[in-house]
């Protein structure tokens, strides 16, 4: 632990010492942070262990101590509830069991059984060009995963069913009344209203987001690609960490995969940094210009900028990209009118630096109106007396900006900056519609270009080349990078707010 200086001691330091002090403080904070995180992770597993222990202990004890209705409920779900008069709950439990058994016999069991091989019977190509289909790896993996989800849900409901019995026995022992079916229904608009509200959105998220993501994470461990599409040419199967090994391979199909990955990752980070901070500071500047005292027509200036948000982004991005086209775009038309040579801005013959700079500049044009709106509201919230007293003390405008405006803004918008940084890392539309990744030099692996972000490269790999397995690997890497940045920054910024603060 380093020595914490008091405010008075801090004032005595000169700028250099202060900087070193802050730097030291930052680096000392890192091991502390790791320790805290370690403890958090440790606690998580400890709690998990305890939960599992309680789970099994409850199961055993409820069975031993329970009456016969409870004991039957271990095999026929909902029996106890039905026998004790809770018709609705009993019927739902029973229904779950019937559906589950029917599903597992009808389809689920078949797919779960094949999960570890993803199918054995290869499709055969006949001489006349027809295909005799065998197994379907895609379906096996998808429905296999779905069945696993279903099994987990079933076990959880089974556990709830038993817990229900235990609670009911206790209530009856205390000679109180059990909730009737009517009470249950009524609670769905009152005490348990949140369940009513959450059912549909969570179900949607599970089926349309969690299930697909889980599936794609598993795909990263297979050889699912154009030559193994799992249906008509060859089945795909598990191959462990081989795809992740690609990230560190120097030679794949004549190109240096790991160098390409490194270059794209670096550019993604550089892009996200510039896209976030140029927009942030310039947007703030525009907002301050409009907010300035004595400036008239504030609403008009604002509306002019806001208009460009209203126009669907693909129109403005595509049109601007054609303005920069070679050699017939408007910009090059102007350049040639002045007698200069037309410039390759965004196409395949562009210099990488020119293309990257153009993309960042165009992104400023796209992003400033939005940031202007975001910052306007916050700027107006800064207490005016801060500036008044600064004026009386003779602070210059620049000092007021660096000592009052900027710290306040950074404090309030810290979390926003973080999300917009990660959002920019995944800013597909701007890059894809502006350049499509161009320029594409020789020697980059898998058709990557020099303005490609990880996300656009992933799109090209997965959708255009059907190299799903490698696409999934890149997707996981994007997740890892975003998660690491988020966790680290979130723990460093001061404005991690408490959500109960307002209520």
């Amino acid at each position: 632990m380093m020595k914490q200086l008091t405010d008075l001691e801090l004032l005595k330091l000169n700028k250099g010492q202060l900087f070193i002090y802050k730097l030291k403080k930052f680096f000392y904070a890192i091991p502390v942070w790791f320790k805290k995180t370690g403890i958090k992770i440790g606690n998580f597993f400890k709690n998990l262990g305890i939960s599992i222990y309680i789970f099994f202990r409850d199961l055993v004890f409820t069975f031993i101590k329970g009456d016969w209705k409870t004991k039957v409920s271990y095999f026929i779900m909902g029996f106890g509830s039905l026998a004790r008069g809770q018709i609705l709950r009993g019927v739902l439990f029973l229904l779950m069991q019937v559906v589950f058994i029917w599903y597992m016999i009808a389809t689920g069991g078949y797919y779960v059984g094949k999960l570890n091989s993803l199918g054995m019977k290869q499709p055969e190509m006949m001489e006349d060009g027809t295909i005799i289909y065998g197994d379907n790896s895609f379906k096996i993996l998808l429905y296999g995963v779905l069945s696993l989800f279903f099994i987990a849900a079933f076990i959880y409901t089974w556990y709830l069913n038993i817990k229900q019995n235990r609670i009911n026995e206790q209530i009856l022992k205390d000679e109180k009344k059990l909730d009737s079916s009517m009470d249950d229904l009524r609670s769905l608009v009152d005490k348990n209203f949140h369940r009513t509200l959450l059912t549909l959105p969570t179900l949607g998220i599970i089926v349309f987001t969690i299930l697909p993501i889980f599936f794609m994470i598993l795909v990263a461990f297979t050889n699912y690609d154009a030559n193994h599409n799992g249906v008509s040419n060859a089945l795909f199967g598990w191959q462990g960490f081989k795809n992740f090994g690609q990230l560190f391979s120097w030679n794949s199909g004549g190109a240096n995969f790991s160098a390409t990955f490194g270059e794209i990752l670096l550019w993604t980070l550089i892009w996200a940094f510039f896209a976030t901070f140029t927009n942030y500071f310039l947007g703030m500047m525009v907002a301050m210009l409009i907010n300035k005292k004595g400036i008239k027509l504030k609403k008009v200036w604002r509306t002019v900028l806001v208009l460009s948000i209203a126009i669907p982004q693909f129109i403005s991005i595509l049109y601007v990209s054609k303005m920069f086209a070679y050699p017939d775009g408007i910009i090059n038309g102007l350049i040639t009118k002045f007698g200069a040579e037309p410039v390759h801005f965004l196409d395949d013959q562009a210099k990488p630096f020119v293309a990257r700079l153009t993309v960042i500049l165009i992104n400023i044009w796209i992003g400033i109106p939005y940031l202007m709106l975001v910052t306007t509201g916050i700027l107006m919230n800064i207490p005016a007396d801060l500036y008044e007293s600064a004026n009386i003390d003779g602070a210059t405008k620049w000092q007021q900006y660096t000592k009052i405006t900027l710290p306040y803004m950074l404090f309030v918008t810290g979390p926003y900056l973080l999300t917009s940084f990660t959002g920019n890392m995944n800013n597909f539309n701007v890059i894809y519609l502006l350049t499509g990744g161009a320029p594409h030099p020789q020697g980059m692996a898998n058709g990557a270009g020099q303005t490609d972000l990880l996300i656009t490269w992933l799109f090209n790999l997965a959708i255009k080349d059907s190299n799903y397995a490698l696409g999934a690997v890149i997707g996981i890497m994007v997740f890892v990078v975003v998660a690491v940045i988020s966790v680290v920054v979130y723990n460093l910024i001061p404005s991690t707010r408490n959500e109960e603060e307002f209520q």
Partner: protein
Amino acid sequence: MQEKKLASLSGRRRLGNIFTYIGLSLISVIWITPFVFLVLQSFDVSSTGLTGNVWPEKWGLGNFAYLFSADCNFLQWYFNTFIIALAVCVGQTIMQIMMAYALSRFRFRFRKGLMNVMLVLGMFPGFLTMIVLYEVLKTMGFTGDNSVPGLILVSIASSGMGYYVAKGFLDTMPKSLDEAAMVDGANRFQVFYKVIMPLCKPIVIYIILTSFMGPWGDYIFAATLAKGASAGMNVATGLTSWLSAANVAGYFKYFCAGGVIVAIPVIILFLFLQKYYVEGVTGGAVKG
């Protein structure tokens, strides 16, 4: 002495303001110009390809006439997008408000867990899921020419994950409102429907507006689902296909005209509801 100083101060301020006006005019010009160019070029009937001159050599409405002729699918795309936008804005608004209200007003087991799961899910690149969803929708028959229902389904299904702005808004509403209503005998549903909802008007309008505008620019998923089938495209996919390397020489001016037609209703809607949009954006950034 004092007066002179004051005079020079106000003089300096006036000079500063002049510079600010110049700066703002310049900014406005930069932001407006591309759209003015877009409109100008849409009236140029001298050639349908990409040209370097802004001012039309020959004025006419030919490009617009083409959009509404039987030769192209623009009207179909427009209709598709409009249907999608309507359905999506209803569905997304309901999903997000439900999610936000439950997470803001109730304290239940798994609440933190649910929020953390959604946070982590948000860190995965969105269209990792696209490959799976495409195959699933294909077996349901919702791809190619018939991809409109598929797009609607996908856009609505997991939209609960975008609950942040609405929850931030609800969090600032005092809980005593709910409590007072419940003391008066209202159940939670009545509190939600009769007390909170009317107060949520600004944020509901914000969500409706943004979710209505989204589909007009939604390119990537729409393109994947339609997979080149013209009848199943939305405006973004269709107009983008006109700018492919093979098409741009023959279709650029049609793109400009199409862009104008697409942008006008959205701009009008936006100008009317601008107030709510600004409130939502500023609120969302602060409360995150």
